[in-house]
């Protein structure tokens, strides 16, 4: 659906993107991760044709990115913006028409979405009279109103209470089921693990990681095991710092080059092994580890 090859962009001497390559297949949720200032917004702006890259190519649906693609992309920027004095209905109509919908189509779509998210009663209200969460919903609808095939969401959950975040999450999954490709840029790792099929991580203008969640997790395996022992037969070595709870001892041990079975038989000498489990890092830990190891100022 989206393919990026050797993309470069710099602002003066500041490098925003350096040799970025991405391949996003159709119908998936793709997580775009990275700390602030890594170059995510620049990348998103290039895909949206707000700015141009210095060199490199962007393909959408197999075609080189061109103005006609505007109508198949939906974009929710991180910093939300609506005309405060405009009514919900007028606002949605304006954005839908700008995305190339005819007046008739746009009105049908707006009615569909207002009904779906139970917002019909707000349609004649001005944005300034809405709560922040309500305005966010209006913004979300404005983004998806034209049935985009590629949806780019920058921090879509910020500003939502858990209830509404859940509604939006379900909408995203529903759109995905209908074949929409979603690019999700976020710092919230729990939503990445929950929603994304594939991720890419950008730090200091470079892509440092990409693949499916499973692939990414296998790249970074600290090889640490979580262990619980009880019915001890002899004292544990002092360097194994453990937590005792009614006769059972919990601690973590690195493999330190051993085979897991070797470690297990070693442990069996000390008592009954109740738990022996490899610690799989969360996306959050991978994120922090990768950013630290590639440097971050």
């Amino acid at each position: 659906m989206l393919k990026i090859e050797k993309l470069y962009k710099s602002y003066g001497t500041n490098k925003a993107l350096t040799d970025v390559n991405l391949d996003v297949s159709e119908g998936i949720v793709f997580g775009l991760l990275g700390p602030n200032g890594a170059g995510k917004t620049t990348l998103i702006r290039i895909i949206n044709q707000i700015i141009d890259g210095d060199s490199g190519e962007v393909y959408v649906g197999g075609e080189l990115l061109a103005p006609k693609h505007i109508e198949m992309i939906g974009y929710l920027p991180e910093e939300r913006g609506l005309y405060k004095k405009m009514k919900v209905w007028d606002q949605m109509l304006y954005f839908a028409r700008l995305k190339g919908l005819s007046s008739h189509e746009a009105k049908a779509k707006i009615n569909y979405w207002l009904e779906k998210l139970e917002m019909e009663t707000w349609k004649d209200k001005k944005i300034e009279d809405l709560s922040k969460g309500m305005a966010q919903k209006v913004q979300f609808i404005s983004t998806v109103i034209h049935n985009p095939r590629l949806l780019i969401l920058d921090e879509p959950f910020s500003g939502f209470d858990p209830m509404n975040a859940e509604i939006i999450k379900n909408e995203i999954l529903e759109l995905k089921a209908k074949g929409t490709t979603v690019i999700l840029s976020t710092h919230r790792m729990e939503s990445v693990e929950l929603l994304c099929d594939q991720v890419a991580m950008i730090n200091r203008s470079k892509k440092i990681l990409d693949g499916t969640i499973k692939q990414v997790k296998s790249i970074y395996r600290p090889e640490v095991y979580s262990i619980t022992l009880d019915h001890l037969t002899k004292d544990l070595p002092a360097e194994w710092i453990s937590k005792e709870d009614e006769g059972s001892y919990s601690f973590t041990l690195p493999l330190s080059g051993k085979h897991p079975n070797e470690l297990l038989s070693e442990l069996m000498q000390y008592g009954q092994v109740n738990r022996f489990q490899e610690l799989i890092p969360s996306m959050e830990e991978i994120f922090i580890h990768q950013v630290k190891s590639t440097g971050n100022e």
Partner: protein
Amino acid sequence: MSKIWLVIHREYVSRVKKKSFLLVTLLTPLIFPAIMGLFVWIALEEEDNQALRIIEVVDDNKLFFLESSEQYAFSFSDASPGQAKKLVHEGSRYGFLHIPKFDIKNPTGISFYGEENPSMSLISYLENNLRKKIEEQRLFESGIDPKIINDVRTKVSIKSITLDEEGTETVSDATVNYAIGFVAGILIYMFIFIYGNQIMQGVIEEKSSRIVEILVSSLKPFQLMLGKIIGIAGVGLTQLLIWIVLIGTLTTIVTGFLGMQMPQQQAMELANPELAQSLGQNTEMGEILQVIAGINYVQIVFSFVFYFLGGYLLYGALFAGIGSAVDAPSDAQQFMLPVTIPLIVAYMGLFVFVLNDPNSTTSFWLSIIPLTSPIAMMGRVSYGVPFWELALSMGLLILGFLFTTWVAGKIYRIGILMHGTKPSYKTLWKWIKANN
């Protein structure tokens, strides 16, 4: 193109639908005549109701006579200055004019005493009367009968006629031309300022509320800028049109109403200029009407609309550029100077040079340079401008606004996405030079 149209439509409708627009548009044409009417009414009332003011005059020369008016009565007496001042104190006299004995060739020492500051008009009335009397006295002493002087006094008024290339003669009157240039120039000046600012505010609103990021993912920044400028121009033209219709209607009603109270002849002249001409071209009213009839309205209206729009587009683009470069209206101040100075120069130039001497070199240049021509040329058009000058000025104005739109577009494209940095002129220059 259809997207620009959407932007124009939104900018236009969102402004025209505002209550404040309706209020300003409907009230402004009423407020000006209302204020003027109020002044006239107050002045008339005051004149009617004012108690007669008596002024004690002590003339030690026994020479002067002052005619009493509706407002002032003069009582001549031989009272001593002390007594007269006492009368003023007691309130039985409004003031006391003391004319001591003086040398007729060098009259000094004339004083007016009053409880309050006398009005300018009273003092000049007194001065004029005394001067006339002294002059008459001196003429008389030199052996000339003042009556002869009065007989010799003649009123001369020049009827100015412009000849054009085909030899057609048009009666012109500087006053009428002046008024047309004056009103047209001020209207354009105000329009540029008021609506230019609206463009700037609109751009800043979109930028600071981050709507612009969504908008430019749907259309080109240049389309957005142009749509805004044109949409707001539509608002201005609508307002102007409503004003013209309203003022036209009001004037018809008012003149109709006044017409009934006017002396017959004047009313007739107003209603029928040709009749007035046939009655005699010497009457002043007829002359003015002839002048009004002789003005090339098509040219003036065409020029007005052209310079009105041309000037607005030229400056509107600059206002849009400034708005895009800053985060808040308060930051815009530093960039406003280069925009306001030429406007003020044009405005001052209109009064100091153009209206006084439409054909001077300064007036010529002011009306040719695109930054000042929209205001300055309007001061010249009603007097008649050679075709080539008008064509040159208009051509340059078109080039001018194409140029400012191009420059503003370059600044706008980068500026609207820049947040948190206060740009300097140097950064603006960088943006203009940037290819991307």
